[in-house]
Structure formats: C-alpha cells, structure tokens
C-alpha cells in the first residue's frame, strides 16, 4: 500500500510541476478529478486500461481519447495516456489525492471530508469550516456528504485528524465504558 502511494506521489508531483509551470494547476486538478471520476465509475473503461495483455500503445490511445472526450486539456490527455501506458490506471484515485495534497500544501489549505446524518445547513458549514481553520491554522476546503447510517451529528476528517461529533461515536464510547465496567 505504501509502495502504491509512493508511486502515485511520483506521478502526481510530475504532473503538478508541469501544471504549475503552465500556471494551470487548479484547472488541471479539476480536470484530473473529472477524468478519474469517468474512468473509475465505468468499470469497463478501468478494466481495459488495466489489462496487461492490451498493448501499451493501445491503452495510451484509449486513455487519451477518453480524456479528450471529457474535455480535458492536452497535458491531462498526455498524462492519462502515460499512466495507462505504464499500466498504472488503477492508481488514478491515489494520484488525484496526492495531486490535491500537493496543491493544498502549496496553498496552505486542507480538505475536510465531512460525513453527516442530515445535510448541514450553510451556516453550520461556515461555522464548522471557520472553527476548523482556527484550530488547524489552514484554509479548509469542505467536502460534505450525507451518510444515512449515522445516527446524528457528523464525522470530519482532515488528513489524519478525525473529529467525531456523531451520536454513533458517543454511543461507541459509552459501549466501551460499559463493557470495561
């Protein structure tokens, strides 16, 4: 897993440097997310790009065509083609995450993945974001999603930091206390 992440970081750093040189790091990041979403959602596409018996040149051409069809710029097309040619299409999610981490580090920002039982109101989002920024000293980009399995409250994850403000977490802690006696 560590090797996989290290590989993804190498690819992400390479494309990030090129994007930054051209001054389009932000747009390239968005397009990478978009293309990766297309590839990972359609299993047939990800299968084709991962098959070792399909010629590398063919994989490259297919990946570049997909990126072109998704409206990505030449840099993203070439990058996706390279990743597919090298048989690393299954690393795309990690590459995107590593790219975002580089982008966030460059800009002094962090991404907060927030799972909540019910959708947060705008005011709650702002309040949470402001408090997280104060606590971590970074600008927070919030990625929120509703998780119906949660009983109430929310769970926010920023990097390796997890803030459990859910009823589930409280009940889990209560369960542990009861079990310990």
């Amino acid at each position, binding site marked *: 897993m560590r090797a996989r992440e290290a590989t993804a970081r190498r690819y992400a750093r390479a494309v990030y440097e090129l994007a930054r040189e051209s001054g389009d790091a932000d747009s390239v990041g968005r397009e990478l997310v978009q293309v990766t979403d297309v590839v990972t959602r359609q299993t047939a596409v990800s299968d084709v790009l991962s098959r070792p018996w399909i010629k590398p040149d063919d994989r490259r051409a297919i990946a570049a065509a997909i990126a072109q069809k998704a409206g990505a710029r030449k840099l993203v097309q070439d990058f996706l083609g390279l990743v597919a040619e090298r048989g690393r299409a299954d690393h795309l999610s990690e590459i995107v995450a590593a790219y975002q981490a580089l982008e966030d580090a460059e800009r002094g920002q962090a991404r907060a993945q927030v799972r909540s039982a019910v959708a947060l109101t705008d005011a709650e989002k702002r309040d949470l974001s402001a408090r997280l920024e104060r606590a971590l000293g970074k600008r927070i980009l919030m990625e929120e999603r509703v998780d119906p399995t949660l*009983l*109430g409250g929310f769970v926010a994850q920023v990097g390796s930091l997890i803030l459990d*403000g859910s009823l589930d977490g409280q009940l889990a802690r*209560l369960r542990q206390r009861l079990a310990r006696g």
Partner: protein
Amino acid sequence: MIRVLALALLLLGATPAAVLASEGGGGLINLDKSLIIQAINFALLLFILVKLLYKPLLTKMEERTQAIRKSLDEAQAARAEAQHEREEHAARLQAAHAEAQAIRAAALKEAGEEQRKLVEAARGEAARLVESARAELAQDVRRARQDLRQEVSELAITVAERLIRKSLHDDDHRRIVADAIARVDKVN
C-alpha cells in the same frame, strides 16, 4: 642293636657257667672245641638274624614311625588349616553380615528419602492443581462477567440507538451538530 648285643653277651656269659656246671657234676655245655663252634654258629646266626630280620624290622618300624608322624603332622596341619578356614569363613560371614546390614540401612534410608520426595512432589502437585483450578475458576468468573457486561452494554446501546433514531427530529439534529461544532474548538 645295643640291646641285642647285650642279650648275646649275656648268653655268652651264661655259656661258660653252664660248661663249668657240667664239668662239676654233669652240666649242659662242655668247654671244648664244640663250644667255640657253637659260639661261632651263634655269632653267625646272630649276624644273619640281625642282617636279615632285625635291620629290616627296624627300618620298617622306623618307616612306620615316620609315616605315623607324618600322618600326625598332616592331620595337625589339616586341623590347623580347617581351623584357619573356619575362622576365615566366620570373618567373611561377619563381613557379609555387616555389609548386608549396611546395604539394608542404605536401602531403608534411600526408600525413606524417596518416599519423602514423593510425598513432597504429590503435595506440590496437589497445591499446583488447586491453585490452577482456583485461577481457572477466577478466570472463568472474570470472563463470564466480561461477557455479561459486553452483552448488557450491547443490548443497552442497541435499544438506545433504536430509541434515539425513533425520537430524533430535525431540531435535535441541529442541536447535536451545533454541539459537535462547538467542540471543534477543543481540538487543540
């Protein structure tokens, strides 16, 4: 030998007396040439007797005496040897008896020691078994308590979850979220 010669001389001395007696008034022996011949005959006879009978007889007697003495000596030696063997046997018997006593005493001591060790080992084993059973029992009790506590907590939390899920309204969600957001400040 000396006694024979003395006897011969006595006979020779008696002979002239006998001759004189016959000359005096009709004795047994006459003092003439026949006396000399008789004396020579007697001497010859005596010589032959001594040579042929007396000496072998003496030799035989001596041999017998020597044989008897030898037998006596041998008997004496045999008796002494028997006595020696008897004493030796008695000493050996006594030594064997003493050795047997020592072996018996050692065996008794060893058996006693072995018995003591066995008893001690049995006591130790019994104590270990009791301790092990006690520890196992305590472990079982602890485990049973833990299981019971686990089950009770699981049950309580499950019931609480159901009740909470049923009774939670939007206001409650907002309040829970607000409380959780407020706790973010305590992260540092």
